[in-house]
């Protein structure tokens, strides 16, 4: 990522998804459940945000997934550029940071 951060103006949907990730809902289905958005909106939005460098994805290790007897999840983390963009979006949409409750420990 270059040092120069260009502010990206997000749509409401993208801003809500980014806010959900910031709040700790870090995989697709938890973002869906929290935001109430359908899967056909959330997953393409996640890909767009990742393509624009606002979030980054990583796979959970197989050992951790095996310990929980479940398939490994793909986690999304917000990047520095994403945080800057989210901060700008919060100024535009002041109620954004009041949208989501703090997630349970398993989602953190």
């Amino acid at each position, binding site marked *: 990522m270059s040092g120069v951060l260009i502010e*990206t*103006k997000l749509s409401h949907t993208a801003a809500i998804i980014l806010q959900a990730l910031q709040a700790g809902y870090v*995989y*697709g*289905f938890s973002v*869906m459940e929290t935001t109430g958005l*359908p*899967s*056909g*909106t*959330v*997953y*393409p939005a996640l*890909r*767009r945000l990742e*393509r624009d460098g606002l979030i980054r994805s990583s796979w959970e290790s197989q050992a951790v997934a095996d310990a929980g007897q*479940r*398939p*490994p*999840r*793909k986690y999304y983390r917000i990047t520095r550029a994403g945080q800057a963009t989210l901060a700008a979006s919060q100024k535009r949409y002041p109620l954004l940071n009041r949208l989501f409750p703090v997630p349970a420990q398993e989602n953190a």
Partner: protein
Amino acid sequence: MLRGLHLAIIEAAALLVPAPQRAEWLAEWRAELWYVNRRATAFCLGSFSDALWMNRNTPAPIARRWFGLESPVRCLMFLAGLTGLSVLLAIGPLSHGALAPPRSAVAQDMAAVSAPEDSDRRNPTGPEPSPSPQNHAANPLPIVAPGQTGQGWAPNWRDGYLGLPLALCLLLLVMFSSVTPLSLGEYPVNRCAPAAPLRLLRWVFLAVKVALVIPAVLCGALALGPIAPPLAAWGLFFGLLFAFRWALMDQRERCPVCLRLLSNPTRIGDASQCFLGWYGTELVCSHGHGFLYVPGTSTSWYDTQRWQYLDPTWSNLLP
């Protein structure tokens, strides 16, 4: 049971995802499905939207990678093969007489009237022969007994059978060129542009493509004819429409010099942040022949895609 259906939906959607990303995409959707405990079908149907996004944001369209259509020679070979297959289906042993003349249900009850084989037997001044069946050999218009029809009958059936589709082709070409918003773009000539004969090559390529897809669709529809005539008629119409459109869309995405598909689409600008600035997609010829600029929105000063020829030195910079 439902679990299998949900997995099948996701795997069907995965066919739209480009092969390099498909395994990871499938793994993510399967893992996410594991956590879904209600409205799982709606969840899975959303995978199509995601798969389409992946498809559209991939450097080269997926189908062309499957068939190796980036190269113009392979593209023409593929079309020739498709045409050959269609012709084989229409006239081959598996066609069940797709190109045979239509048979009447009461053919055995019909009689045919044919011209006499020997014109010398005509004698307009002579006595009229008896119309009795015994004298039919001398009759200028011999009557063939019922059940003996078929050989050499309806000699011009091909004209009627193929004339309509060919007329439809012409009609579609005219209609398509007048109503479609798809233009082939602007290719302004500069000092880096190749010589005129070489620039004509892309038009020859387009003509050959159209010439190959028309018989492919025609014969495909003819092969469908004996099985499902209404389906054949609709298939012919929509097949030709799709074939023409594909030929133009394919042409728009090819380098005018080497005729290979362009690659590395890059988005420039952001529609929400540009008022009078240019935004759209830039594609490049992998052999360094030039750039193609496709505007995100047509404007009065940039209404269609525009090609820029590059200096030959650019080819050294590209793989």
